[in-house]
């Protein structure tokens, strides 16, 4: 794991490090060689770590006041909002923090898609990332149930009913999940338990995610292998630390805007009505970050196939390193892939939009086309593109285009214009 042998300077440090090499680990983390061309899209790993810690800290404090009982949950949340010192702040940070977490994770995932970070030798990092993403969705869903409002209750009903699509055992599984014959108190208490557990599972997986990252090192915007340490790398501290810190500062401004100026804009007004098992809200929508998958679910007219399509849309990502047959990582050198990448981004945004709209008429048609395209992208376009695409020559190192070797078109043109 360590790239060079680290020896602590103090005598105690050496004594301790021989017994538990924490100082070696710290040294590895600070000296960790990173490609020097990392752009701001690479700062979202740090931002996501911040989001996770924010959710854990605010979640722990909320749990000191929240009561996981069907008769008291709704009131205890209002109690947090009105009576608990700074309860409103902590809850708004936690609720909006979930949205910020997903915002950051989507940027992080699409960064990876653009620069081919999921390709060999980083497949395991990618797959751990997908598992983290799945756990995030589970945690977010269960967290949304806890306030026991109308959207909580009916969101829980709809999502748990997805399992009833499984032939033969579906009904039994749903009753098992509920601990009854409908979403009720037993469901709430177990969701609270799992909602408390999952962030710590995510934390463990994040450690593995970073560990796996530190074996091959970071990918970079031109997607080539970098010798490390070399002229192409800079130590993590202070170069990346300060860059990450600046990006985090910018991110927290956006975060704070939501918390302080529009804390409920990402939520749903119906969730301020206490859960009522007799009345379904007129228009059930999940939180914005689940909308694309919700659109896929609704675009298939068959119940079981709809559920299968929705799950496949997520799980297909795990197979991505093998579906993308191109040896070139970065889209910078893949002119065709670059276009298909942006079409995919648009496709997912469209799915998100129609997911928020009623599933009828034109919206349904758009959802069906966009769902079909989503799968075509991963199952046909990516595998074929790897063989057909004519890629742009890749530089041999990060410094090469600047310091000589292969001529860089931009610099050549610049020099010519200077001569004139």
């Amino acid at each position, binding site marked *: 794991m360590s790239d060079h042998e680290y020896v602590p300077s103090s005598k105690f440090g050496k004594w301790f490090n021989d017994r538990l090499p924490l100082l070696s680990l710290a040294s590895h983390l600070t000296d960790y060689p990173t490609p020097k061309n990392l752009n701001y899209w690479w700062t979202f790993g740090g931002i996501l770590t911040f989001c996770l810690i924010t959710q854990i800290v605010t979640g722990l404090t909320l749990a000191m006041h929240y009561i996981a009982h069907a008769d008291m949950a709704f009131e205890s949340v209002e109690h947090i909002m009105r009576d608990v010192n700074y309860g409103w702040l902590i809850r708004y940070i936690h609720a909006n923090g979930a949205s910020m977490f997903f915002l950051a994770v989507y940027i992080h995932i699409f960064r990876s898609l653009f620069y081919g970070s999921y390709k060999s030798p980083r497949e395991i990092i990618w797959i751990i990332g997908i598992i983290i993403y799945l756990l995030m969705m589970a945690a977010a869903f269960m967290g949304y149930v806890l306030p026991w409002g109308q959207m909580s209750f*009916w969101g829980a*009903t709809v999502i748990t009913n997805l399992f009833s699509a499984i032939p033969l055992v579906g009904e039994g599984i749903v009753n098992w999940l509920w*601990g*009854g*014959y409908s979403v009720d108190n037993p469901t709430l208490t177990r969701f609270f338990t799992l909602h408390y557990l999952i962030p710590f599972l995510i934390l463990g997986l994040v450690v593995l995610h970073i560990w796996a990252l530190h074996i091959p090192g970071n990918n970079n915007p031109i997607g080539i292998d970098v010798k490390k340490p070399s002229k192409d790398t800079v130590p993590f501290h202070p170069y990346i630390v300060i860059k990450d810190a600046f990006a985090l500062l910018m991110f927290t401004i956006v975060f704070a805007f939501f918390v302080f100026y529009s804390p409920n804009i990402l939520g749903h007004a119906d969730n301020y009505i206490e859960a009522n*098992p007799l009345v379904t809200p007129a228009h059930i929508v999940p939180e914005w970050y689940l909308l694309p998958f919700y659109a896929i679910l609704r675009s298939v007219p068959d*119940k079981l196939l709809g559920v299968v399509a929705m799950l496949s849309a997520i799980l297909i990502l795990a197979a991505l390193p093998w579906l993308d047959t191109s040896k070139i990582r970065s889209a910078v050198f893949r002119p065709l892939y670059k276009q298909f990448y942006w079409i995919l981004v648009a496709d997912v945004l469209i799915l998100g939009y129609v997911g928020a709209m009623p*599933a009828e008429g034109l919206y349904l048609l758009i959802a069906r086309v966009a769902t079909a395209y989503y799968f075509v992208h991963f199952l046909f376009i990516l595998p074929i593109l790897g063989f057909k695409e004519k890629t742009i020559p890749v530089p041999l190192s990060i410094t090469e285009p600047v310091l000589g070797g292969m001529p860089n078109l931009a610099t050549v043109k610049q020099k010519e214009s200077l001569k004139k």
Partner: protein
Amino acid sequence: MPEKMPEKKPKRREFLFTATYAVGAVGVGAVVWPLVDQMNPDASVKALASTEVDVSSVKPGNTITILWRGKPVFIRRRTQDEIMEARSVKMEDLKHPEKDEDRAKDPEWLVMLGVCTHLGCVPLNDKGDYDGWFCPCHGSHYDISGRIRKGPAPLNMEVPKYEFVNANTIKIG
């Protein structure tokens, strides 16, 4: 003899290993099952199995909704027109073919779980393209017999076990 020994010994050891794994697996299973089963509906939930409802105040053409096992149950007193409509539907037109006669023992009273068979929302009364119910969540249309006619739901709304205790009282469950 010493050459044969190494052949025999691993076999015996392998058997012991396999037997140990097998017993171990049974032991793990016996420990895991209570941890899994504790999530199933408990005795207090199961105990709320039946509910009695007084339906004397329900006028023809009206529906009341009551709560049974945490789920809404629709009780509709149907008009003659509605009964005619429900009974005149051809079986070929149904996604989940069921005769109205089988769904409503007494044609005037339709008793069913007010739970959409798609993903469990509560459909709205007197809505939809078939004069019955309409689920606002994902657009399933039900007819006046509670049968699925259009939309993603796979089945008709479920008719629970019920009986008339007397002319005015229905016992559900």
